């Protein structure tokens, strides 16, 4: 049995895909993220951590939260496909640093912290403008993409600020007091 066949059989036995070669560099073989990513070697637990960050930024209120809309997957997809290499690297570093910071402050991983602890940690980063560190860069990238994912989501564009595919009209003198963005024909593109 050659090496390739052996690996394939191993994958078969364990029921997980073996991804070569990036995962060999990790000390611990972790399950990969739930979507295939080409440039961001994010593990399942990092994905879960990111989901917590997104939910803290855009929590479930009387409208769906980040987890309901799976916004963390939007963040990963956009960064993986459309992000620049240096942004991807800073994001990955920052993602790891957030968990380390949570351990230092609360002796817990970020995901296990209370909602108040999560909010306090991220609020500190929110105030660090200009992304001076990888950690702040990670936060602001996540926030920007999660917000875009939210406002471009089907939910948002059909329930909150409705998108019109076929307006069939143009009025260049429309009174702002008549605006109602939740109305189906509010006419704002």
């Amino acid at each position, binding site marked *: 049995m050659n090496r390739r066949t052996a690996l394939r059989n191993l994958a078969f036995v364990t029921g997980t895909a073996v991804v070569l070669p990036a995962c060999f560099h990790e000390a611990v073989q972790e399950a990969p993220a739930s979507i295939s990513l080409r440039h961001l070697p994010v593990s399942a637990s990092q994905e879960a951590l990111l989901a917590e960050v997104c939910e803290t930024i855009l929590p479930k209120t009387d409208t769906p939260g980040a987890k309901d809309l799976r916004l963390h997957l939007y963040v990963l997809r956009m960064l993986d*496909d459309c992000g620049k290499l240096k942004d991807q690297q800073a994001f990955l570093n920052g993602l790891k640093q957030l968990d380390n910071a949570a351990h230092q402050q609360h002796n817990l991983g970020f995901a296990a912290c209370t909602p108040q602890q999560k909010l306090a940690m*991220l609020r500190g980063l929110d105030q660090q403008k200009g992304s001076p560190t990888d950690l702040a860069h990670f936060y602001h990238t996540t926030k920007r993409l999660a917000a875009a994912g939210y406002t*471009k989501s089907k939910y948002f564009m059909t329930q909150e600020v409705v998108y019109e595919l*076929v*307006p069939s009209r*143009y009025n*260049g003198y*429309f009174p*702002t007091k008549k605006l109602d963005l939740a109305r189906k024909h509010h006419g704002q593109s």
Partner: protein
Amino acid sequence: MANLNIDSIKARTFDAIVIGSGISGGWAAKELTDKGLKTLVVERGRDVKHIKDYPTTNLYPWEFAHNGEIPQDIQKANPVINRCYAFREDAMHFFVKDAEHPYVQEKPFDWIRGYQVGGKSLMWARQTQRWSNFDFEGPARDGFAVDWPIRYQDLAPWYSYVEKFAGISGHADGLPQLPDGEFLPAFPLNCVEDYFSKHVKSKYANRHVISARCAHLSEPKAIHAQQGRGQCQNRTLCQRGCPFGGYFSSNSSTIPWAMRSGHLTLRPDSVVHSILYDEQQGRATGIRVLDAHTKAVTEYYAPILFVNAGALNTNLLLLNSISHRFPQGLGNDNGLLGKFVAFHNYSARISAEYEGFQNLTTDGRNPAGGGYIPRFRNVFKQETNFLRGYAAGFGASRYFGSDSDGLGADFKKSLENPTLGPWQVGSHMMGETIPKETNYVRLDPKHKDEWGMPLLSVSVAYDDNDAKMKQDFYEQFTEMYTKAGFTNIKTINSKQAPGLDIHEMGGVRMGHDPKTSLLNKWNQLHACPNVYVTDGACMTSTSTQNPSLTYMALTARAVDHAVQAAKRRDA
């Protein structure tokens, strides 16, 4: 065997051949088939059928994988096309990727191409203005290029002819530098555009901000219904292809029209290698075509040939059509083929804000894009330190935004309740450039593409006249914006290379004299008159107007001439 061969030649013989199916090739196809000629249209790209082949046309924003953005790997692999404003996730399948069709840039030149049936008429910006005699008389008056062999009066009836069919929306503004046409109702200016229009009119003798004229059916007529086209629905998603046929394209209009005549044979995936020239007959007899996929070579024959491959590709094809009679390319006795290429200078913009009209905004979308400012510099006489002038767009709009600070429930609430910002206004310059012998295209002596065609080598650059004109645009618009009370005025130098304007023209210019031009006043090659060139390659100068409407009118006029000339020969 001999009979089989004769049958085969017969099957490959037509009354007319059109090379290219973009905005001018589509018109050639329509006009030739309307007049009953059995016509072959060859297109190097794939077929794109109206509606059926518009895969993204009805997608909602959330249905795109990347929210409209182009993934990094595609951007990196295609630096030229990635600079095009319309190269976005919803329409990228209609643009030529850099690596698929290489060319040589002796100087930076962004060559934007669409290789498919319909060409770039699918994704064009649809702005359509007539030229005036101030444009046709420009080279003679100002002493550059050569005199146009036609005047506005020659083209005016043909402008009317194509406008009625294509459907052009606009106002009759009564301006000598921008003749009125056969208009469907204009898309109106909005309150700030109107304000600026009135303001400019009150402060300047000869400056006008009018509704942009565009190839949209604001109010379709019977002729448009006959094409299967309906009213523009203000989607402004035109670059995806319009399921309503709301704007003019070869795909929605001329090609299916020609197809319904029963006289059209459309061959996509057919790369024309060269035009065949017969020395005994003293004329072109047909074309040599490579199948885009199998590379199999086939020849097709016709007594009339229309070259509409797109300005620079028309140059390439003629340069590559070598014979004993024409060793430098078909019709190129004077060595000027490929020279005097020009374009439009689109490298300057200006933006500002306006604090008025806070109680008003827009509702729906304007497919015309807003206002158009016809050329006002050097129109009636020379008055600046540069030749010619520029037109400009003018648009005003308000955008929604929300507070980007904070996180949690408050941040989410602010996203859900965006507020209107101030009016944003902007203009972009569309400058006439002076055709020069030093701006040229030629065949690369070494490199060929995978179809065995020499690569096109492009050497086109801005000059001092362009720089002075650009400075004037900044100054004049800063002054106009300031007087109108606009604030936060910012001039923007895009520093873009020529080509990104997607208005490259010339190389096979029209003129009176075979010694100094390639085409006569009917768009026939002086030295090979059964070959007509009616795309951007034929342009003697560039004017400031968007050129497509003029290509359409020139094409319809040239087809009429070709068919009448053929009848005279028969008689």
